[in-house]
């Protein structure tokens, strides 16, 4: 065979699924190339405050993973990068792929940068931060969060004064190690791998698709990830619950579930699976922060199926006095600094109107656009919503029609963290099984 070991795996997406699979494979002694579109790893979980049902802070349980991934001698990180092309080895050369990775220019020489943060302090530009779901600001030179791995900044060309008007250079002037490099260009790297795991995750249905809930333009109507940032100690309000419009503490907060989910006529027919649990958690955490506040949750069915999940939602209702209302919210209205929530309580059969200070919407989950792009590149089938289809749903949940290409986590549909971790472990098992078989298992691990 032409391609001798060392065998290595390309993993696309460095959220919890991608990191889990990477560590699983690297700890068995095989190399991993981990490609992440954003400047740092951690994915959606890095945006979360605390996690159900234990209320462990997400940062506390995630950080060891991001740091371990970042430092692992067998994991090569390509952050701020995208896979541009994948070419299978010619027939007869075994399972393998030639992969073209495109690294975006950070305009910072990461080999020299120490991550001190001076550049971010000195940069005069303040723009909305995507990581903070636009509730907080970042600079034109930025890292996603203070806990970023790798802790190296990138310059956002669109907002950088130097790139737009040729002036400023503040970051360059103050950088103590001379790491700023405005002339840096995109890099293309070609590598060979012997397995691929797709772990590009999900995104949320944009509020603009939900005109009935303000379409993303109504003040104090935010999505669930934005609320996570409000709850997070490292978020824009340092963990204080303040409404975006006027910075006051909201006394009445309404959580709307199934926003875009379970609605085959107007939106998406499927259940997004994770919202029931995180809404219960969010309502609970809100009550822990604002003791005299009232939390309402509008739901169709409470889907708390998992170890200690049902008990958790019970606790939200009984101990934290979260008021659950079975019914769908028909619309929202902004009046006198309040958001009026109009809905039906299908249990009492009555119309309900709540004058809320803040409304948190749990939008449907969608496959990430990267997933569609990669599915096209690899010729992988998806369902009509764009979720990747496994080879067979029951016994082959992580395999695809392409030998050597596996799926991990929410690329296949909505999943919560434990299911994602197990699923990603399953994808890693397939890779390890394939590699060990190839090298001769009893001869030991990596070749």
């Amino acid at each position, binding site marked *: 065979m032409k391609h001798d070991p060392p065998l290595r795996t390309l993993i696309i997406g460095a959220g919890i699924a991608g990191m889990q699979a990477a560590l699983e494979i690297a700890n068995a002694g095989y190399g991993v190339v981990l490609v992440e579109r954003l400047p740092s790893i951690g994915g959606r979980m890095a945006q979360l405050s605390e996690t159900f049902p234990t209320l462990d802070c997400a940062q506390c349980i995630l950080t060891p993973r991001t740091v371990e991934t970042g430092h692992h001698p067998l994991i090569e990180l390509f952050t701020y990068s995208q896979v541009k092309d994948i070419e299978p080895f010619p027939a007869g050369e075994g399972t393998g792929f030639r992969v073209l990775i495109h690294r975006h220019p950070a305009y910072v020489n990461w080999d020299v940068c120490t991550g001190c943060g001076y550049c971010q302090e000195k940069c005069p530009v303040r723009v909305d931060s995507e990581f903070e779901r636009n509730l907080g600001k970042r600079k034109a030179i930025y890292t996603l969060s203070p806990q970023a791995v790798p802790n190296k900044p990138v310059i956002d060309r669109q907002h950088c004064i130097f790139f737009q008007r040729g002036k400023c250079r503040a970051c360059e002037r103050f950088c103590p190690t001379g790491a700023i490099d405005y002339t840096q260009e995109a890099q293309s790297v070609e590598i060979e791998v012997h397995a691929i795991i797709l772990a590009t995750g999900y995104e949320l249905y944009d509020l603009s698709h939900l005109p009935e809930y303000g379409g993303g333009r109504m003040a104090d109507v935010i999505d669930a990830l934005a609320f996570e940032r409000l709850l997070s*100690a490292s978020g824009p309000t340092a*963990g204080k619950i303040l409404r975006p419009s006027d910075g006051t503490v909201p006394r009445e907060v309404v959580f709307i579930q199934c926003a875009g989910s379970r609605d085959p006529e107007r939106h998406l027919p499927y259940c997004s699976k994770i919202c029931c649990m995180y809404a219960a958690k969010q309502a609970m955490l809100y009550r822990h922060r604002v003791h005299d506040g009232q939390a309402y949750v509008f739901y169709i069915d409470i889907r708390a199926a998992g170890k200690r999940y049902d008990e958790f939602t019970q606790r939200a209702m009984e101990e934290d006095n979260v008021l659950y209302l079975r019914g769908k919210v028909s619309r929202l209205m902004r009046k006198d600094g309040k958001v009026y929530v109009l809905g039906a309580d299908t249990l009492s059969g009555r119309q309900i109107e709540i004058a809320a200070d803040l409304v948190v919407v749990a939008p449907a989950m969608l496959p990430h656009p990267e997933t569609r792009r990669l599915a096209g590149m690899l010729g992988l089938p998806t369902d009509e919503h764009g979720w990747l289809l496994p080879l067979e749903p029951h016994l082959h949940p992580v395999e695809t029609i392409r030998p050597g290409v596996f799926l991990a986590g929410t690329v296949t549909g909505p999943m919560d963290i434990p*299911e994602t971790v197990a699923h990603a472990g399953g994808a890693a098992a397939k890779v390890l099984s394939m590699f060990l078989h190839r090298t001769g298992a009893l001869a030991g691990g990596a070749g």
Partner: protein
Amino acid sequence: MARIGVFVCHCGLNIAGTVNVQQVIEAVRGYPDVVFATDYRYMCSEPGQTLIRQAIAEYALDGLVVAACSPAMHESTFRKAAAAAGLNPYRVEIANIREQVAWPHQSEPEKATEKALDTVVSIVEKVRHDEPLVPLTFPVTRRVLVIGGGVAGLTAALEIANAGYPVLLVERSERLGGHVAQLSHLYPSFDPSDTLLTPLIEAVTSHPLIQVLTDAEVTGWEGQAGNFTVTVRGIPSPVKVGAAILATGFELYAQQRLPEYGGGRYPDVIDSLQFEAMLKAGEIHRPSDGRIPQEVVWVQCAGSRDPVSHCPYCSKICCMYVAKQAALYRRAIPGGQAYVFYIDVRSQGRGYEEFVRQVMEEYEVVYLRGKVSKIIERNGVLEVWGADTLSGQALHLNADLVVLAPAAIPGTGSEVLARLMRVATDESGFFAEVHPKLRPVESFTAGIYLAGAAQFPKDIRESVAQAAGAAAKVLQLFARGEMVAEPTVATVDEELCAGCGRCVEVCPYDARTMHPWRKLATVNAALCQSCGACAVACPNKATTIKNLSPRQIMAMVEALL
């Protein structure tokens, strides 16, 4: 003279919201041997760890105290960071000022700050006397034991065998396939379940590396991760294995425990597996008189979600299989009427929501939101009493057949296995995972992993994914070929040991034995769990736990007083 650094973590607001971190830093700076002290928002983060590594180099630190969360969370994180900077990791200790200080004393910030300082200085005393140690390594036996021949166990076995490692698969019953073998069809495809199971069983039984033992049971278990010895009823001699996967599945809550539904009393009240058997046989009839039932009621959450009388948890799989059963009933008996009583319809998974909608709309199954309160049999008719919580009305239906969806409870024999193999279980008897989010396939016992419903009820797809996840853990261990263990185990000072043997008596892990010919007690470091029972029992203080010596303990206590 030691050179100790103290690093106090804010943990966002978790610690800093209660403890005055600056005050702790100021106070500890003056403590003997503390040459550096600082704080950071998240010490475990990349910049936090960089701070630690740089300080080790800059101040030539030879010991660290990290005041942060429980050592269960981040001890290994900080030890690794220190090792990367050239410091022996066993000279790094955690002062737990989150779980033991900030969280329980939120209402008393001043006292909490005082306690945080006391905690930190007592750990400084410990670090002062910590010995630099090296982790222990043991070779691994590269064969796995899989207990349970259901879909999870079969998947795990096949995955590991396909990689090239031998598998011993032990199944209690006479056949492989577990509960899936009892099912008629799958949801949401309506494919016969045999189309899925038969090839899987075939692949396992024909695999040269898988030894299948049916009608067998694990009766003996000893050793430690990497090197266990298992005794199985049905084979003559014990077998050495390096790891085990528990795939013991679930059982249905016995109908007899549901007297309110006439379970076990009325012949025409059956459980969902009995109904599967009817579907599989293609004959749906009432057990009492053989008539074809024209009105069938499914009762969900029978024993689930009922913290007062039965199981507090949701059994997760019932909503979907009930929808499937009702649809198959309607297919088989087009004139029949199907009703489903539910609390919440939990159809979460790709295609599941759409499936239930199809069952309601195309198969015209009537869903009633409410709990059934009682079932009474009168003249061969079952009266089902319940409430429709949507209309707010009490409801009463006459049925020919009632199908209960009983709670899923831990598989038979899992309790015995848990004791035998020393594996922790949760409050419901399912095997406990190390961390519900990030370590869902690992048991608390090193080398023993969890697959499928043994950990909590799961459907086929999820069981299979988790079984593969457990297999990944085993493959990782076998590929490495060695097991690494903590060196902080019991040790014997031969000068002091009188050979009385009390340590051997008290050791719960069989880690202590007498020397074969010298009058001396010895330690099997691979088995020792550092519990300290021997150290307490030793009358001469000849036995101590490494880095938890009496001298250290006394110094820590003095610092606290």
